[in-house]
């Protein structure tokens, strides 16, 4: 046995190092001070001081989604912990692996009286608060259990369907000394992982796919998590099946591939929305069939037999009735399905379906009707794609900016499109960009923002400048809360209420006030120049792009309607 005498805080850091944690995003305070004291002089873990705990959590998620590793954030008790909640909820909805460490008032101790439950200063029952938005949470009550808690937490966060795990650390547990032993053991008898595909289901699915006349693949975020993009491409090529993604699946399939349809949904690509309704077999991989993706369920792929590959058994039949469920790791399942299907398939070139797919793509492509010189979101995003390498990472805020990005910016690689899908958190994109840049310092990271969203977390300019984490923010500045304004325009008879941002701040001066670079553009040429300046420089840059406040995102599937009822002149 290898026992070492150390404090709980030291045990925590050693455990984090053993998990290969190189970065923690956080803000300190009284109840987490012993951990920060132990961090002082630590050479292996870089601490990045966020300016708001919500952003520490978003940055941890950006780090996680860019790298595939767990991201770590840290806050003090009470308000520090509650400020993390939006970030934790965001990670939960988008199945991102983050570890949230929070300080807590003392549970007991020689010099302190027992405080938990006594409404001590800055006490918040953070575990009670986050139960519904974490995969699991821990509160160590003794120092020796810290290593195994940390091991378990990382294992839970990163395996199966990933998600956030919170560790709440009473202050006395951080500061007291005990004999600690480190192991790599995971002890979780109740944690059920079903990664191995069922052979019978695979061959049923292969039969169905081999006979399909109009097969379509729907790829969700699970494909990215599982690292199954290569298998997805092979599957599509084998079946000559078009691939639509969900919003979260964007990047799982290269959007410049001839069989790519872009994403489906309320503001999905029109060809994807149309074709999914005409398919006879739907192969859905790593998706939870969110309402924003499916729209009205009755008209969602009504004639298709449905195969669902999914690691989370609880997603099977939750929203959509499935004919063949395959509860497994997406990569393993696709590998097996490829072999099984290729044995049964008689390949037919140039089928009717392929013709339909080609025609739909040509007629319904949102990229078609170009007025390439106008400073409108479509042209800006197409230009941006041309200027950025395939490996560049895009984050977005929430609203029209996000939906335009999904429609017009073609993601070519997994983990290069990072956006708040499930929770739709305004303010996510900028701190997530910071986190992504820390994870991938050699890559360009660009946040496509709305003015409303950027104002929500813009204070992280201070963090990005001080910590030297250069990212680019493109503010599509329409002076309104655009997406909500669009709803009021289309669904509430233009009765605008509380969507006008009035005189928005001068984003160029704002950037400069923080010591960042600010640029304003009024033409596509200026935009090109600004992007080059921003991405070649070594400083965070905010590019202010004034645009009309009347732009709509089209198509639009109004709430309650089905995907085929998409509206708008697209």
């Amino acid at each position, binding site marked *: 046995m290898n026992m070492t005498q150390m404090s709980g805080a030291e045990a925590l850091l050693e455990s984090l190092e053993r998990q290969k944690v190189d970065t923690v995003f956080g803000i300190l305070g009284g109840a987490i001070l012993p951990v920060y004291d132990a961090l002082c002089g630590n050479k292996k873990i870089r601490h990045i001081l966020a300016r708001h705990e919500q952003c520490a959590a978003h940055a941890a998620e950006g780090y996680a989604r860019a790298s595939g590793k767990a991201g770590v954030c840290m806050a003090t008790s009470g308000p520090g912990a509650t400020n993390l909640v939006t970030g934790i909820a965001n990670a939960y909805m988008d199945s991102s692996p983050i570890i949230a460490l929070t300080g807590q008032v003392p549970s007991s101790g020689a010099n302190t009286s027992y405080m938990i439950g006594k409404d001590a200063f800055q006490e918040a029952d953070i*575990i009670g608060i986050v*139960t519904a938005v974490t995969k699991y949470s821990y509160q160590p009550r003794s120092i020796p259990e810290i290593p195994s808690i940390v091991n378990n937490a990382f294992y839970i966060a990163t395996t199966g369907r990933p998600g956030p795990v919170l560790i709440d650390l009473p202050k006395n547990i951080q500061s007291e000394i005990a004999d600690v032993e480190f192991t790599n053991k995971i002890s979780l008898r109740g944690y059920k992982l079903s990664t191995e595909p069922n052979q019978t289901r695979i061959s049923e699915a292969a039969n169905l796919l081999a006979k399909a006349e109009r097969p379509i693949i729907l790829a969700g975020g699970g494909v990215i998590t599982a690292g199954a993009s290569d298998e997805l491409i092979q599957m599509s090529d084998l079946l000559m099946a078009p691939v639509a993604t969900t919003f979260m699946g964007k990047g799982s399939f290269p959007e410049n591939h001839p069989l790519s349809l872009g994403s489906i949904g309320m503001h999905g690509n029109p060809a994807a929305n149309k074709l999914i309704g005409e398919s006879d077999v739907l192969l859905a991989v790593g998706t939870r069939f969110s309402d924003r993706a499916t729209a009205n369920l009755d008209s969602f792929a009504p004639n298709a037999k449905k195969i669902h590959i999914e690691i989370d058994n*609880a997603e099977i039949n939750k929203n959509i009735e499935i004919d063949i469920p395959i509860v497994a790791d997406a990569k393993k399942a696709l590998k097996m399905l490829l072999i099984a299907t290729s044995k049964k398939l008689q390949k037919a070139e140039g089928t009717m379906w392929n013709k339909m797919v080609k025609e739909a793509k040509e007629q319904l492509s949102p990229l078609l009707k170009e007025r390439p010189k106008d400073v409108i979101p479509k042209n800006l995003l197409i230009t941006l794609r041309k200027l950025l390498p395939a490996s560049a990472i895009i984050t977005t805020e929430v609203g029209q900016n996000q939906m335009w990005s999904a429609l017009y910016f073609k993601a070519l690689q997994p983990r290069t499109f990072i956006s708040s899908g499930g929770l739709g958190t305004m303010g996510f994109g900028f701190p997530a960009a910071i986190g992504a840049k820390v994870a991938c310092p050699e890559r360009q990271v660009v946040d496509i923002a709305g003015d409303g969203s950027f104002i929500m977390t813009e204070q992280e300019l201070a963090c990005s400048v001080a910590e030297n984490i250069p990212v680019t923010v493109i503010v599509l500045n329409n002076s309104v809360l655009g997406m909500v304004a669009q709803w009021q325009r289309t669904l509430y008879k233009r009765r605008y209420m509380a969507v006008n941002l009035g005189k928005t701040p001068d984003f160029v001066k704002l950037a400069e006030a923080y010591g960042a670079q600010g640029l304003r553009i009024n033409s596509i040429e200026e935009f090109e120049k600004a992007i080059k300046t921003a991405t070649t420089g070594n400083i965070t840059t905010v590019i202010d792009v004034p645009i009309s406040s009347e732009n709509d995102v089209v198509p639009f599937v109004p709430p309650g309607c089905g995907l085929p009822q998409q509206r708008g002149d697209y």
Partner: protein
Amino acid sequence: METGKTKVISVLVENKPGVLHTISNLFRRRNFNIESITVGPTEQADIARMTITVNEDEKTIDQIVKQVAKQIDVLRVGELEEGNFVMRELSLIKVKVESSKERSDIINFAEVFRGRIIDVSTDSLIIEITGTPDKIDAFLNLMKNFGIIELARTGITALSRGVKSIRIDG
């Protein structure tokens, strides 16, 4: 809201703090209706059994079982197969007694229902009765005529019959 018959879900969980909160929070958050929930230790001290009764349709029950199974502190979960389990509830009923005639009537009723008198005072009796919820309801109906002063019901607990078991090694 009646949507069908009461279904019983048996859950083996880690016997530690916070688990009941996780499960009840899950039901609230997912909009599943709990009729009753009981918890107690099992033959293994570190494992507790939760017995949850719900009144939901088949599709919802499927979701409940899957969502509960997903919880990390849940070791086993299953719906008890209709007609193939036994369930019991225990109830303590304090009944008003105004005359010795009433006293003997109540004692007679209790005997018919295999209840036991566990406390006697000059103007009340406490009866302990165990059985299916139907049986307890029927008995309570009779007692209403005398006047129920206080009532405590445990909620349902249940086990599968015979060899079919929800065990962590099974």
